[in-house]
């Protein structure tokens, strides 16, 4: 014979608003890193990547943005976040210094395969970082993602929503 039966009925919950249930979720954030372009000539050449952002998160000023950044800009962003936020910042794809040495058989850092690997790594890095609630509070992240250019003389600060 069983003990007194425990009451396992569900607790009462408010029925969900249909708009909330079927509308777009408020967590939409998509970042693409694409269209690598090598600019300049000779030893001053460098590669830039297009960063396209689409979101409905209120913390981003622009719901859509498109900027171009180079690898050193990513390094700058990573350094700022490591210093100012409590985030454990994920690693960037490698610096590949050995690729910058002379007498290589391939195109070094302008090699198509290398650029594609780097592009994929940068995309992964940005998605991880931009989705972090603490990183989203940093001015440097928003400047990197949505401002025309990165002003490295800026004053680091936190974003506060109204």
């Amino acid at each position, binding site marked *: *014979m069983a003990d007194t*039966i425990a*009451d396992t009925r*569900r*607790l009462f919950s*408010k029925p*969900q608003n249909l708009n909330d*249930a079927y509308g777009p979720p*408020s967590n939409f954030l998509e970042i693409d890193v694409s269209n690598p372009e090598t600019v300049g000539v000779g030893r001053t050449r460098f590669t830039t990547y297009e960063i396209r952002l689409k979101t409905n998160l*209120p913390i981003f000023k622009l719901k859509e943005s498109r900027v171009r950044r180079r690898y050193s800009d990513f390094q700058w962003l990573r350094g700022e976040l490591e210093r100012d936020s409590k985030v454990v910042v994920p690693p960037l794809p490698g610096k590949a210094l050995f690729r910058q040495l002379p007498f290589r058989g391939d195109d070094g850092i302008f090699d198509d395969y290398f650029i594609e690997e780097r592009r994929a790594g940068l995309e992964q890095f940005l998605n991880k970082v931009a989705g972090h609630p603490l990183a989203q509070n940093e001015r440097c992240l928003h400047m990197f993602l949505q401002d025309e250019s990165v002003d490295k003389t800026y004053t680091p600060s936190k974003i506060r929503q109204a």
Partner: protein
Amino acid sequence: LHLHTLPVMSFFSFGQSAEIDIVLNDAETRKKAEHKTEDGKKDKYFLLYDGETVSGKVNVTLKNPGKRLEHQGIKIEFIGQIELYYDRGNHHEFVSLVKDLARPGELTQSQTFDFEFIHVEKPYESYTGQNVKLRYFLRATISRRLNDISKEMDIVVHTLSTYPELNSSIKMEVGIEDCLHIEFEYNKSKYHLKDVIVGKIYFLLVRLKIRHMEIDIVKRETTGTGPNVYHENDTIAKYEIMDGAPVRGESIPIRLFLAGYEMTPTMKDINKKYSVRYYLNLVLIDEEERRYFKQQEITLWRKGDIVRKSMSHQAAIASQRFEGSSSAEKALAQAQAKEQEQ
């Protein structure tokens, strides 16, 4: 000439030795309980409760019949002690009772001695933990000049509680500003070991991509005092309650049956030596493997076996819960009246 005495005299079959056996009087009818030993093995021991009398017999069997056994006295002790693993030498005895069975003399044949410890206080539950152990045992000792002969018999003590008068639910709103707000609710704050945790998680704001949510039961054993406090956390259970991304307004139910997990009652500051507490840890994990969690203490208690109510009373209680109508209340009143008549 120097006679070298060894610790185990029976090696040389000089003199006499004996075997001791302790038997409880109600061994046939008394229930046994499973209890983990320090090395993780499970064994069954007689189960005793606070206030119960402990009575039985000590059987002393002489190994070499015909030879006499000289001794300095025979006694039996009932001991409750706490042993901290980092301080093994010091046993803290919180219960220590002695009964002398025989004055110094000699045994010429095997003999049985009766003993009785009346209404023994057993204030704490037996516990074998990661860093501390509390145990109760009977120990019969034949004292001798060079080496004693003794035998220990461990018993297990459970502490029982009754349904708490006050057992409020736990309801709280937590979150990360502008990012994730949830309201969690658990139907009680005190659960017995075979209880069910019924609750829900209500999402007020979801600006993260949550992939999965689980509820863990964490046991925390605390030993030591002051600056030497040591917490040992152990996740006893992980129970997934949601797979997939929730949105605002969604409510996720929780129904977690505790009987399937090995747990003890909550123990607070036992003899000022250790505590064992339990926490529900609600964990949300997002698409980038980031973990968000909220820990909440719950009190666990041990329920005694209840006196079984009649079938009709049980059925009436059940129908009242699900119908909540006056007809069910009438059925309950009728069943109660019938019980009183019987």
